[in-house]
């Protein structure tokens, strides 16, 4: 046989199909439904898994090669940044508080995404989506680890990050991002893909990742900037996967549309609530600001997202229904969330502060309809109080939303002077919500959301003290006992930036690095 003559050259697509698609088979010693037990119960109908278009035809050998090259470069920069005390080049030490929010609130979620994508990467019946999800699963552990490694050196020099893993499991505001991801990974595989693959990674990623990484770039943090840029090509793959996934579901059966639409509505709202933390970070925590939260929302959601939903309209998908409310809220939420953290600065693992005059003017310019009218007076008052030595700390415990777990601090969409309260009755108990969106999510799946581990309830029930603590002892200080359980060091990790150890150390170290005295 003359092999050379008969050998045909395969195209890239064909070659990839042979290397990947042909690997699976219809099992016969075990039922397919037992091998893939989870991809039917949500009611999504898939008739032909082979219709899945591979969004990127990446074989493992190419994956290892590209990713190793990226890792080599990234760690060289991280090493150089650490060796040269790169942290002293940031704008000012207030910036580090954005990183504290990141490592306590986001890096552990990258890990959860890793496990979540492993789950769906095992359990989808089609080879195409399975391989794509597995690659995202391994990318996500990369992101978790590169973030931890990049911020490791900050942890050596600044407070608030030292026990991030313990904190994400316990601290009250970190239950907001935590419960978001717990919600996604406990859902079925298709909902997970809409929740994380589509809503989070595609629709909202520019509002999460871009502000932090651009914030790092604007504030001289080469460490964080580098892991951000290094993750960019991974993120591009993840976005393509999310989009392919939703199109695939919609093209397979018209009955999938109402289910998918409900998930889009739910997860866009869940995502928007989590992003209120990012909004606060952008408007208040970055010494050198990138853009306002409102501007980011307008560019990344209203313009880019608008185009996306126009594209999906041909499948019958409509723009998420929360958008009307978010359009009103966008002028308020960052101020309301920062006000909350300022008050509760005694129980947060990062520092808070009141904006300077110059910063208040920036906020006025960015929020001409709302800042001067509703927020400047409050902030001016708090500044005066602080100047008189009466820095305000709220020591009460707030009521939390049963769904998003944010304290009930947001106002009515049409009345910024009135706190929004909603409630539902379920099996003889009353549940409280911050918004119509969160109430509706609960009402659709009450049996899920009643399970929520609500930090404030848990504190009242006595579950948030160390085991040897006796709450009946005379002079018992519950707040101190909770902080101790959080491993949040009072006077170091919390309270105002002014007078903090971070502030003092940074000034002293920068002095050593820039002066000869």
């Amino acid at each position, binding site marked *: 046989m003359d092999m050379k003559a008969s050998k045909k050259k395969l195209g890239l697509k064909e070659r990839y199909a042979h290397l990947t698609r042909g690997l699976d088979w219809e099992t016969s010693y075990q039922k397919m439904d037992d091998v893939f037990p*989870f991809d039917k119960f949500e009611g999504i109908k898939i008739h032909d898994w082979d219709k899945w278009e591979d969004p990127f035809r990446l074989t493992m*050998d190419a994956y290892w090669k590209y990713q190793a090259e990226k890792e080599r470069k990234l760690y060289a920069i991280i090493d150089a940044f650490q060796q040269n005390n790169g942290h002293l080049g940031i704008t000012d030490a207030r910036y580090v508080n954005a990183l504290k929010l990141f490592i306590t609130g986001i890096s552990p979620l990258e890990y959860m995404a890793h496990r979540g994508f492993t789950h769906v990467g095992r359990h989808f019946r089609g080879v195409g989506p399975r391989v794509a999800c597995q690659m995202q699963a*391994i990318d996500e552990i990369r992101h978790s680890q590169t973030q931890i490694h990049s911020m490791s050196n900050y942890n*050596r020099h600044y407070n608030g990050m030292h026990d991030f893993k313990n904190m994400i499991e316990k601290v009250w505001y970190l239950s907001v991002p935590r419960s978001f991801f717990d919600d996604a990974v406990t859902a079925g595989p298709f909902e997970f893909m809409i929740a994380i693959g589509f809503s989070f990674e595609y629709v909202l990623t520019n509002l999460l990742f871009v502000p932090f990484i651009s914030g790092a770039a604007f504030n001289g943090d080469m460490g964080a900037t580098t892991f951000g840029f290094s993750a960019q090509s991974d993120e591009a793959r993840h976005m393509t996967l999310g989009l392919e996934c939703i199109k695939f579901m919609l093209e397979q059966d018209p009955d999938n549309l109402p289910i998918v639409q409900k998930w889009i509505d739910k997860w866009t709202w869940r995502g928007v609530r989590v992003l209120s933390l990012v909004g606060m970070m952008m408007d208040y925590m970055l010494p050198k600001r990138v853009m306002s939260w409102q501007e980011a929302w307008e560019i990344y959601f209203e313009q880019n997202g608008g185009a996306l939903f126009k594209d999906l309209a041909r499948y019958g998908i409509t723009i998420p229904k929360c958008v009307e409310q978010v359009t009103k809220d966008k002028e308020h939420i960052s101020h309301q969330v920062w006000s909350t953290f300022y008050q509760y600065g005694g129980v947060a693992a990062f520092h808070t502060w009141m904006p300077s005059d110059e910063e208040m003017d920036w906020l006025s310019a960015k929020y001409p309809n709302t800042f001067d009218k509703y927020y400047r007076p409050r902030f001016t008052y708090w500044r005066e109080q602080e100047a008189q030595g009466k820095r305000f700390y709220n020591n009460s415990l707030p009521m939390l939303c049963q769904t998003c777990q944010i304290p009930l601090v947001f106002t009515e969409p049409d009345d910024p002077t009135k706190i929004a309260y909603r409630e539902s009755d379920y099996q003889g108990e009353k549940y409280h919500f911050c918004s119509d969106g969160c109430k509706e999510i609960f009402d659709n799946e009450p049996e899920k959301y009643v399970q929520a581990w609500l930090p404030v309830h848990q504190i009242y029930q006595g579950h948030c003290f160390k085991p040897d603590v006796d709450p009946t002892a005379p002079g018992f200080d519950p707040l101190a006992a909770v902080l101790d359980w959080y491993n949040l060091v009072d006077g170091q990790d919390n309270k105002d930036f002014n007078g903090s150890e971070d502030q003092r150390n940074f000034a002293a170290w920068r002095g050593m690095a820039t002066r000869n005295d």
Partner: protein
Amino acid sequence: MQMDLRTVAIKPLRQTFDHVARRLGADKPASRYQEGTLDLQMETNFHYRPLWAPEFEIFDKRRTAIVMADWYAFKDPRQFYYGTYTLARAKLQETAEGDFQFVEERGLAELLPDELRQLAMEMLLPLRHVAWGSNMNNCTMSDYGYGTAITQPCLYQAMDQLGIAQYISRLGLLLGEPEDLDAAKAAWLQAPEWQGLRRYVEDTLVLQDWFELFVAQNLVLDGLLYPLVYEHFDRFLACRGGPTLSMLTRFQNEWFAESSRWVDSCIKVAAGESAANRERLEAWCGHWLERAQEALTPLAARVFTDGAGEVMAEILEQFRQRLTKAGVGGGQ
């Protein structure tokens, strides 16, 4: 000679994260493997039960019969976190790429005797489906497993097996035509000599105890299959057709030597934890070893005919030694 380069010296407040320091027993500098692995998985205060498995928490120790006081007793002797993992694999793939190119450029595949080439394809190509089964099984272990120390390398193992499935497919495209891959799949589905192995793989795909799955897949099946194929069969081919096929399967060979170190260390730790664990592991080993032997014997017979018994006996002997070293006496 040492140069005395100076940087501004700042005394850090701490050396590592608290959860890492607690495990190291003191606040001291930690490696990237440690900071990227230890205690990374959530353990408490889960918000909701999985809709798809409401009897369990999101991560739940009760998903296996193996009991550990500390699931971070498992350590990867290779110290793989994502960065070191991809660097190690990039190195292996660079060699493999060079080998494939060399064989292709020199037309070495065409120099193989026809019969030998056919035999190689017949025996090797269906193994892409076995690798794919292992990819799924290692995903299951990473999904249901407990503690990053063991779930992390399970995902790496899953990706490795996907890579292996793809290397075997490439070998098929190099030695033959796309139709040969289809023929190998048909053999996998129908040929009598492959059915024992296919049944083994399919039965593992529905195993619910992830540590039993680890034993059935990574320890037992790979522990017999890789020596059979990539040592004995490889030597058989090399004696008759030179090193071409060894070059095209070098990745599998080197990979197996490396990953077995990790597999053995996991077994050793689990078996060393308690007598109950050890007995459980021995029962699993006994059960799956018998099945793996049954599954692989017809394949050995196809190649080694009358010598198959001897080859299998040698492989089993080696494997039993491996088990004994890992503290498990499951070979009987």
